[in-house]
Every structure is written in structure tokens, then in C-alpha cells.
């Protein structure tokens, strides 16, 4: 083999083979093709799963981490925060997030985003899971509305999500009380909803409270339903003792709104833009069953010390309204003070609720003609609180309701106490007019004369004694004269007997004359 010549010989001896060059590509090329296909598939899947990018603006980026913080709905990941940056004007943070493709239909203007973190609010603890997993962004998707890609995150999680069946109601109150957002809405002690928001109106002093009542309890709210602030404990003292009303432990701590429909109220559906009053307490709400109030003005001349606003107006002990205002008025013409007391009467309490105003006026006119008057009365002897009492005073001076005044004026009578006082004053005045000194002088003179007379009787004593002894003697002799064994007695008896005999015969004769009067002239028949 090492010899070059032999090598050459062999090469010449062996003919060159026909070489068939097949240039079919090797099967090995399948590997890169498969690799490319798989890579392309993965890339396609990653790209196709990529949904729209959105921008959410938050007050602070607390708990937000770029690339980590997820956006979840019902604990399903629907997106992830990609970038967190400060807003150019430093007023907040701008958070870029990429959503999943399925999120596209509900990225509308109604959709709300908020950061879920551990919270204790509204009587419930939420977001505890985020203690370990870190915060995430919650979303309340709304399909209806214009699609947008830029959102303003809400700072507090919405109390009610859009999908929850139920209904929202608007309450208005003068005092907000302690109804916090998220506080429970109670119906007979059961939590049936939440307070969505509670805010002071910009224009007036009313507090508008929005509540959400879950289905099916929202059907329990009618047009006549009353809402009250069920915050804390309602302690009231009445004739029956101390009354303590609470709704639930949660409402004691954080407040709440309770509602109830008065028994017998019509079950009318609630209008779309209905606004309910929010009463301060349950008793307040119960009292205001009669929403229709008619103002009347009562003029009192006497002191209204002890008459507070809100004092009841009673008719024979039954409340028919309350005092709305007390003022002082100087009547220039008459040069005297008058105190107008504005009361609100609930006429439904004593007239037909369906009656018209004219009918109602006629009724009241009739009652006033019959003697219905308002009067101040002491409601509480200890505290001296006054109430306005309505009662029938048939003997009162005739009066009428002044209907044409801005507020109808209702006739009044003075208070009973005042009447007594007036009478007493008159009495004292009369007593003052008596000539007391003259009477006293005369009385003194009379008494002196009397004493002189009595002193004079001292000399009469001994004479009187002898006179009495003599009288005694006289009586003793008289006794002997007319005693039972004296002759005079016997004589007297016989005389008396004869006298009775005579009287009898005289009676017979009289009878005779009555039956036979002629015998007086012609004598007795038998004797003829």
C-alpha cells in the first residue's frame, strides 16, 4: 500500500463506479422545520392571547408592581400591570396594563378599577388574601357603554358590583348621622344591602345617602317605606319605662340604615327618581307616618317658657302634630307682644286621609265653631315643659280660623294655670280694696265694750245665788201641791174623766146633727 506504483495499478485495474448523486434533502431537515413550527406556534399563541393595553390612573402606586401586579375579576387573572410611572404633573400615577383578549368587550367607560388590599371597612374585613399574595387590581366590568382604554382608578372598592341584582335608592337627610360607606342596610335586623355612598350636597345642607338593596329584598321597598339611621343605640324613656332599640352589633359599631314599611301602607312601586327621607331614629320614622302636615299659627299672650321646638301638639293626650317654631312678635298697633307658635298638624290623624283640602277646612271650621281651641299645658311638672293641647272648650269665646293669613291662624285659649292666676289676682285686688284698718278699729272698740259688760256681771253673782235658792223652795212647794198623793191630783183626774165623757156625748150629738140635721128643729124621731 505504501508503494505508489502498485497503488496506481490498482486504480487502473478497478474501473470507476457510476456514481449516482441523489440530492434528496436529508430527513434531518425536519428538525429545524419542526423547531420553527413549534416556535411559530408558541409565538402566535403568545401574541394572540395578548389583549388590549389600557392605562389606569391611580392616586398612589401603593401595592402596584410593574410586571407583577395582576388585574383580577372574580379571582381570575384578566391582565397584568406592565409599567407604573408618575403622572407628568405628579398628581398621581399612571399604570399601564395589558389585558387578556377576552377583556376587550367590557373595557368601557363604566368599568371601574381599584386596588385590592387588606381593608377593614363597612363591618367586614376584605382582601386578607392580599396580605400574602400582594395587592392586585380589582375590576368591576361593565359591558354597556363607550369602549375606552384610559381609566381612572377608584380609591375605595365599590361596595356593590354592577352585576349584583338589586336596586339602588337615594335617601336624603339633614344630618348625615354616622352612616358610613359600606354600612349595612337592615330590614328587620337582616342585612339586605349596603350603603354605597354618603355625601354632602354641594348646593344645600342635605346629605345624600345612596344605598343598595339586594334582590329580592328590594321588592320590600315601597313608596311609603321609611328609612332611618340605625346607628348606635336608641334609648328613649317613656311612660312605659326605658326603651332600648338596636339593630345589630355591627350597626352599633359602624352605623347602618334600616327600613320598614308601615303596616297598611299601600304597596306602590318606587319611582325611578324617588328620594326617601332618612330619619334620625326609628321612633322618629315611626312618628312621621303622616307625611302630610298642615302648618297653623297659634298666638299666645302668655309665656311660652318650656315650649320647645318639637314639643307635641296633643288632642286630649293624643299626639296630632308638633311645634315647628316659636317666635316673638311685637304688635305695633296694639303695642303688645304676641308669641306666634308655628305648629304642624297632621290632619290625617283625625280626618279622612283622602279628604280634599276644602273638606278638611270645613271640618276644622265646624270643630272650631264647636269650641276646638289650642292651649298651652304643662306636659311635665318636674321639668316644666309645655305642650300645645287641643281640646273642646264649648264655653270659649267664639272664634274662627283665619284662613287667609299666610299661615292659617288657629284660635287659642289661655292656659288653665294662667286663668287661675288671673282670678287670684282679681281676688287679691278686691281684697286690697277692703277698709281693713277701719274694720280693725271698730272691732277693737266692740271688744272693749264687751269686756266692760263682762266685768259688770261680777256683782250679779251673790244675788243670783239667793234667787236660785228661792226658786228651789217655790218648786218644792209646788211639787207637794201637785204630787201623786195630793188631793189635787184626784180631783184633777175626776175632772178629766168627766171632761172626756162630755166630749163623747158631744161627739154623738154632732153625728146626730150630721145625719139628721132636721132633728135640730124637730127633735129626735124616736122621741116623737
Amino acid at each position, binding site marked *: 500500500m505504501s508503494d505508489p506504483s502498485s497503488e496506481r495499478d490498482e486504480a487502473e485495474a*478497478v474501473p470507476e*463506479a457510476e456514481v449516482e448523486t441523489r440530492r434528496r434533502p436529508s430527513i*434531518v*431537515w425536519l428538525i*429545524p422545520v419542526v*423547531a420553527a413550527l*413549534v*416556535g411559530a406556534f408558541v409565538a402566535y399563541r403568545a401574541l394572540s392571547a395578548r389583549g388590549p393595553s389600557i392605562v389606569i390612573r391611580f392616586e398612589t402606586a401603593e401595592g402596584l408592581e410593574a410586571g407583577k401586579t395582576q388585574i383580577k375579576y372574580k379571582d381570575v387573572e384578566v391582565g397584568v400591570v406592565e409599567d407604573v410611572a408618575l403622572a407628568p404633573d405628579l398628581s398621581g400615577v399612571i399604570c399601564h396594563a395589558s389585558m387578556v383578549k377576552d377583556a376587550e368587550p367590557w373595557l368601557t367607560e363604566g368599568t371601574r378599577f381599584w386596588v385590592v388590599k387588606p381593608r377593614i371597612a363597612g363591618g367586614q374585613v376584605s382582601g386578607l388574601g392580599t396580605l*400574602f*399574595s400582594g395587592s392586585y387590581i380589582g375590576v368591576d366590568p361593565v359591558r354597556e357603554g363607550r369602549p375606552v382604554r384610559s381609566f381612572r382608578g377608584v380609591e375605595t372598592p365599590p361596595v356593590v358590583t354592577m352585576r349584583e341584582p338589586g336596586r339602588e335608592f337615594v335617601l336624603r337627610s339633614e344630618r348625615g348621622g354616622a352612616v358610613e360607606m359600606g354600612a349595612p342596610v337592615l330590614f328587620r335586623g337582616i342585612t339586605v344591602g349596603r350603603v354605597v355612598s354618603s355625601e354632602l350636597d354641594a348646593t344645600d345642607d342635605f346629605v345624600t345617602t345612596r344605598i343598595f338593596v339586594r334582590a329580592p329584598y328590594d321588592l320590600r321597598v315601597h313608596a311609603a317605606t321609611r328609612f332611618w339611621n340605625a346607628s348606635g343605640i336608641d334609648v328613649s324613656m317613656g311612660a312605659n319605662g326605658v326603651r332600648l332599640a338596636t339593630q345589630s352589633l355591627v350597626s352599633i359599631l359602624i352605623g347602618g340604615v334600616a327600613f320598614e314599611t308601615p303596616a297598611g301602607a299601600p304597596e306602590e312601586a318606587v319611582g325611578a327618581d324617588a328620594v326617601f327621607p332618612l330619619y334620625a331614629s326609628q321612633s322618629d320614622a315611626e312618628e312621621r307616618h303622616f307625611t302630610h302636615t298642615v302648618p297653623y299659627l297659634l298666638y299666645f299672650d302668655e309665656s311660652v317658657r318650656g315650649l320647645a321646638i318639637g314639643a307635641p301638639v296633643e288632642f286630649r293626650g293624643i299626639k296630632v302634630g308638633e311645634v315647628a317654631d316659636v317666635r316673638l312678635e311685637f304688635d305695633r298697633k296694639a303695642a303688645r307682644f304676641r308669641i306666634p307658635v308655628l305648629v304642624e298638624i297632621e290632619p290625617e290623624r283625625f280626618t279622612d286621609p283622602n279628604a280634599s283640602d276644602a273638606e278638611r277646612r270645613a271640618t276644622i271650621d265646624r270643630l272650631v265653631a264647636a269650641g276646638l281651641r289650642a292651649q298651652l299645658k304643662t306636659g311635665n311638672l318636674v321639668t316644666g315643659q309645655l305642650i300645645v293641647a287641643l281640646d273642646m272648650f264649648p264655653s270659649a269665646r267664639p272664634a274662627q280660623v283665619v284662613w287667609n293669613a299666610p299661615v292659617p291662624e288657629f284660635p287659642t285659649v289661655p292656659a288653665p294655670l294662667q286663668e287661675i292666676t288671673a282670678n287670684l289676682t282679681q281676688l287679691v285686688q278686691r281684697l286690697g280694696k277692703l277698709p281693713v284698718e277701719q274694720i280693725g278699729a271698730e272691732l277693737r272698740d266692740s271688744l272693749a265694750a264687751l269686756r266692760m259688760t263682762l266685768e259688770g256681771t261680777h256683782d250679779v253673782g251673790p244675788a243670783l245665788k239667793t234667787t236660785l235658792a228661792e226658786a228651789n223652795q217655790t218648786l218644792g212647794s209646788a211639787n207637794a201641791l201637785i204630787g201623786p198623793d195630793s188631793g189635787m191630783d184626784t180631783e184633777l183626774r175626776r175632772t178629766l174623766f168627766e171632761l172626756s165623757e162630755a166630749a163623747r156625748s158631744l161627739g154623738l150629738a154632732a153625728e146626730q146633727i150630721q145625719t139628721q140635721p132636721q132633728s135640730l128643729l124637730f127633735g129626735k124621731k124616736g122621741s116623737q
Partner: protein
Amino acid sequence: MGARGGVAVTVRARTAIACGCARCHDCGLIARLSGVVHARARCPRCGASLHLRKVRSLERTWALVIAAVTCYVPANVLPVMTVTSLGKQESDTILSGVLYFLVHGDWPLALVIFTASIVVPLAKLVTLTGLLISVHRGSSWRPADRTRLYRVTELIGRWSMVDIYVVTILVALVRLGNLATIEAGTGAVFFGAVVVLTMLAAETFDPRLIWDRSEGRTAT
């Protein structure tokens, strides 16, 4: 064997191909294979197929290298490992893992992972591509160095599987339910594919081609 490359280049070496012979891979018998290049040859002793050079070495290596490059992109882009710890999910790609260790001051570990998972596969792909191009161009430039490069490539190939091993072990070990769970990501699959494909590519490449070209022979 012990001969330095420099020596071999200077002399017209007596290689098996120069003698028209082929060594059987299985039993080591040297058989004469003059001219029969594309026909099927068998070892007269053990019956194994005989060829002068690895069959279609360049073509196959090219295919595998291209496949490896294709897989290399998703291997680095997709997450290799997803750690779910107390409800908090974290996905890490190879590079983010390296950065994580680097930021947390664990730079030796970062260096190890960076070398094993990024430098080595990349170096292998570049080396193989370079070797393939040099063979195609019939370059006679430093064949001995290039052969050494090839040997290093073949040697370190398996070490880039470290990443895959770590992920595999972690996935098996960390099964603490809600406390912590580790799941392998899609990136790990691609990364494994890159490692395997580069190893196969190194295997199919015939380093003898480096010398064939430098000696003016045509590839087979």
C-alpha cells in the same frame, strides 16, 4: 494521537482516506474502500456499515444548528420557571433569573447560571456555525485550533443542561401546596431542545472534514 496539529499540516499525512481505507466504527477493522463513496459498504468482519466520513455530516449539522437557533429564541424569551408562593405568582426567564441573583448580591450564582445557560449554548451555536462555514469555504486556516475548538464544544455541551436539571429538581422538590409550588415553563422545553440539538449537531459534525478541506479534498 499525540501529534500536534502543526506537525500534521506540514506533512502529507497518511490518512485512512488517502489510503482508500475506512475503519469500522464497531470492531475497528480497516477495510479498503477505494472509490466507493456513495454506495453502501459493509465491514467484512462485523457487518457494520462502513464510510470514509460521517454520512452527510455537513447537511445534518446545518439542520440541527438551524433548529437549535430557532429554539434558542423562545428559550430565552419564555419563562423557564413559574414560582407560586402564597398565591403570588412569579415567572422567570433565564435572563430575569440571572438578573434576580445579580441584584440580590448572589453574583457567583448569577455567573454560573449566566455561563451555563446563556454563554455556553450561544458559544456552541456560534462555534458550530463557524466550523461549518469554514469547512464549506475550504479554509485551511489553523485546522488544529479549529479541531480543538470542536473538542471543547463537544465536551462542554452536556454542562449547559445544568439549568434544566435545577428546574427539574426544584419542580420535584418544591411541592408545598399553597405555600410554594414551582412549575416548569415553556422556555425550559425550548432550552432543553437547544441543548440537545447542539449536542446532536456537535455529534454529527465530522472534525475530519476540517483536515480534508485543508488538504484540498472535497467533502462527501
